[in-house]
């Protein structure tokens, strides 16, 4: 028991261990500890040095490398909005194209092998490719505008040192058919003419691309993709144009221009109720898919950029002015003597002889210049000029196509004090407007007197046909009274049935019209021998809905509106009747 107690006692007060160890052992242990400490410190310092190297010295370079390996740029195909006609037929669409670059310093195979593989795909000889490879070590552009299918073939080659850079290209499936309206985009994908230029803000879409992480096997890690990234809208810009009618109008105009050897021509088909254009053709034209191969002067649409003296097609407007201002009545008669002297000038009828005492309707029917001068003499000069101002002859129509020209008239002083100016204005000479402006003014006669704004853009529609945006239309101010327009329309119907516009008659339909053959102003002042033939048709007269205007510039041979322009209008109206399914007039037998 004592022993046990001692043991317990010893346990309670143990002697210090250090005292129990021999000094040599203690010394050895200290050295070992020191060694371990030194190794640990050195190791720590080594780690710190490496950390400094990785984070500070090479930090930027390494993080860039890591980012390159781990992330990728995801840029979905966000095209410029497509353009379609009123029936949804595509007129312009974006498609991806690629530019192929070669970096010979990264080739893992001999350049000859790469050239031999690429040659049949790019349709270039391997010698020319080899020649290009020798030009530079890197960044050689081999081809651009490569289609997706060709790009796939190049990717399948799996050759190092070849780089395909994606880009966008605008494609116009209809070629030159609607080039005058659509325009084209340049190499930088910016609109340069037509709708592509004027509606740039509506058509353009921001190309959004995001940086996403990539896992080890190359799969995308979409955790950082913003919401709605893939949900690009499917809106397309719809026009009021009907491709079928546009095709018919272009065909008819081309044919007539070939026959009459005309230098240029235009056809405008307008819905007179709101000014929307169903067709707008200007010849000659260009293919927007290959715009660089055409003359730059073709890129403007001359129907709205060039002025011309409308001639007799302006006569219905002057009659409307005279009637609306109360200067004449519809049953008034005038003596057409065949010619009339104004100051030192003599004004003659185009057809030569006079018609004797004739009504206003007959003046229009025979397109009598003398009769028109006599009618407009009844209108006080200031009133006449104020009407020209009311017609906005000196301003633009406000069409949604670019580069529209301002009309030209004499100033008030010149007009009101010059007898000859007023006399020539009576039959549409001495004032210059664009064909689209003339169409707008004549539409006012057809629609009951409103001055509508011509336009080709209908709005932005989604793939379901739901409208998302409509261009703001300016109000249509009244120009003529409805009563006056009815009277003028009745006179225009006589022109087609019995007068100069017989060539535009379509059996079964009530059509109004007016021919025009005007002299072209020469560059030296005065008038040249060149003529502009035009014809305007309105149908159906009982409920006017469409206006067709054809203008043919510098035709050769028989140069009258009735022989050159009226047949074009007739063809277009025939197409219009079948496309729009206009039934024959009820009280008209063929």
């Amino acid at each position, binding site marked *: *028991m004592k022993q046990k107690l001692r043991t317990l006692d010893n346990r309670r007060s143990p002697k210090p261990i250090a005292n129990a160890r021999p000094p040599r052992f203690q010394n050895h242990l200290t050295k070992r500890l020191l060694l371990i400490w030194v190794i640990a410190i050195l190791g720590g310092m080594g780690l710190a040095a490496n950390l400094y190297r990785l984070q500070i010295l090479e930090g930027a370079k390494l993080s860039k490398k890591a980012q390159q390996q781990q992330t990728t740029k995801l840029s979905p195909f966000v095209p410029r909005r497509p353009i379609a006609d009123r029936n949804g*037929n595509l007129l312009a669409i974006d498609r991806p194209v690629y530019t192929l670059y070669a970096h010979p310093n990264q080739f893992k195979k001999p350049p000859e092998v790469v050239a031999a593989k690429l040659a049949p795909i790019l349709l270039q000889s391997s010698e020319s490719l080899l020649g290009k490879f020798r030009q530079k070590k890197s960044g050689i552009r081999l081809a651009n505008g490569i289609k997706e299918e060709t790009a796939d073939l190049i990717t399948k080659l799996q050759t190092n040192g070849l780089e395909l850079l994606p880009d966008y290209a605008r494609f116009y*499936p209809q070629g030159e058919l609607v080039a005058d309206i659509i325009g084209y985009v340049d190499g930088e994908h910016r609109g340069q003419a037509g709708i592509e230029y004027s509606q740039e803000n509506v058509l353009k879409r921001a190309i959004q691309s995001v940086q996403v992480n990539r*896992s080890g096997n190359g799969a995308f890690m*979409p*955790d950082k993709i913003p919401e709605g990234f893939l949900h690009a809208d499917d809106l397309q810009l719809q026009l009021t144009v009907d491709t079928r009618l546009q095709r*018919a109008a272009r065909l008819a105009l081309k044919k007539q221009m070939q026959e009459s050897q005309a230098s240029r021509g235009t056809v405008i088909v307008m819905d007179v109720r709101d000014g929307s254009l169903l067709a707008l053709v200007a010849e000659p034209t260009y293919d927007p898919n290959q715009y660089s191969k055409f003359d730059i002067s073709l890129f403007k649409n001359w129907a709205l950029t060039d002025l011309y003296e409308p001639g007799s097609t302006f006569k219905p407007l002057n009659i409307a002015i005279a009637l609306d201002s109360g200067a004449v009545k519809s049953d008034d008669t005038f003596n057409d003597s065949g010619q009339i002297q104004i100051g030192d000038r003599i004004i003659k009828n185009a057809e030569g002889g006079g018609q004797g005492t004739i009504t206003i309707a007959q003046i229009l029917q025979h397109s009598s210049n003398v009769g028109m001068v006599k009618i407009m003499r009844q209108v006080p000069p200031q009133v006449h000029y104020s009407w020209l101002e009311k017609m906005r002859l000196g301003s633009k129509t406000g069409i949604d196509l670019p580069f529209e020209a301002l009309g030209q008239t004499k100033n008030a002083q010149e007009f009101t004090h010059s007898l000859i100016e007023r006399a020539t204005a009576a039959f549409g000479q001495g004032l210059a407007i664009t064909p689209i402006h003339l169409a707008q003014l004549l539409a006012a006669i057809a629609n009951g007197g409103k001055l509508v704004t011509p336009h080709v853009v209908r709005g932005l529609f989604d793939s379901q046909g739901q409208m998302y945006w409509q261009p703001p239309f300016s109000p249509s101010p009244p120009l003529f009274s409805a009563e006056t327009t009815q009277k003028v329309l009745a006179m225009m119907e006589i022109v087609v049935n019995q007068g100069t516009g017989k060539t535009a008659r379509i059996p079964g339909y009530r059509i109004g019209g007016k021919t025009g053959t005007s002299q072209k102003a020469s560059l030296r002042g005065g008038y040249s021998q060149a003529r502009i033939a035009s014809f305007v048709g309105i149908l159906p007269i009982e409920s006017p809905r469409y206006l067709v205007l054809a203008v043919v510039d510098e035709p050769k041979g028989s140069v009258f509106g009735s022989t050159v322009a009226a047949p074009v209008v007739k063809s277009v109206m025939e197409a219009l009747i079948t496309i729009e399914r206009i039934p*024959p007039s009820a009280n008209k037998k063929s």
Partner: protein
Amino acid sequence: MSAAPQPLAPNRRHRPRNIHPHIANSRQGTQFHQLSVVSTPVERLSSSRPLPLWWHALIWLQRTSWLGCSLLAIAAFIVYAQTVYTQQLWGREYRKLAALQRQERQLTSTNALLKNHLATLSNTKDAGLVAPKPGNAIFLPAVPQRQLVPPPAHPTTAEPITSVPLGY
């Protein structure tokens, strides 16, 4: 007593784990009692002292916690796998979407191109086609509106006279 009495009770360190200290103490106490009073008969102490409810609850928790732990671990694995899998799935579906969009694009532009090509072909003389003209179009006159025939009034046919038995 030459030798110190050796404690019969097992060392605390070697005590079996499953024996509760209370039980052990009681057993120890019994053994000392046997030592001190040898002659007295052994009395069995009642060891069935009821344990508190929380004690049982804790023991139950200890025994069943592995299950919850395992479930949580499995759930964590599933969630992690899902996050990896969905990302892979997204990548796959994105590629599929891009391919479909490309097909749609090619289809629309080819369709438009084909339409234009056909229309151009139809205008050639050899095509044997003529442009539609009002002369060769058939306009069906609108059928005069038929007069509304009022539907016959509610049938007023007299009810069949049935012989109602009046009585027997």
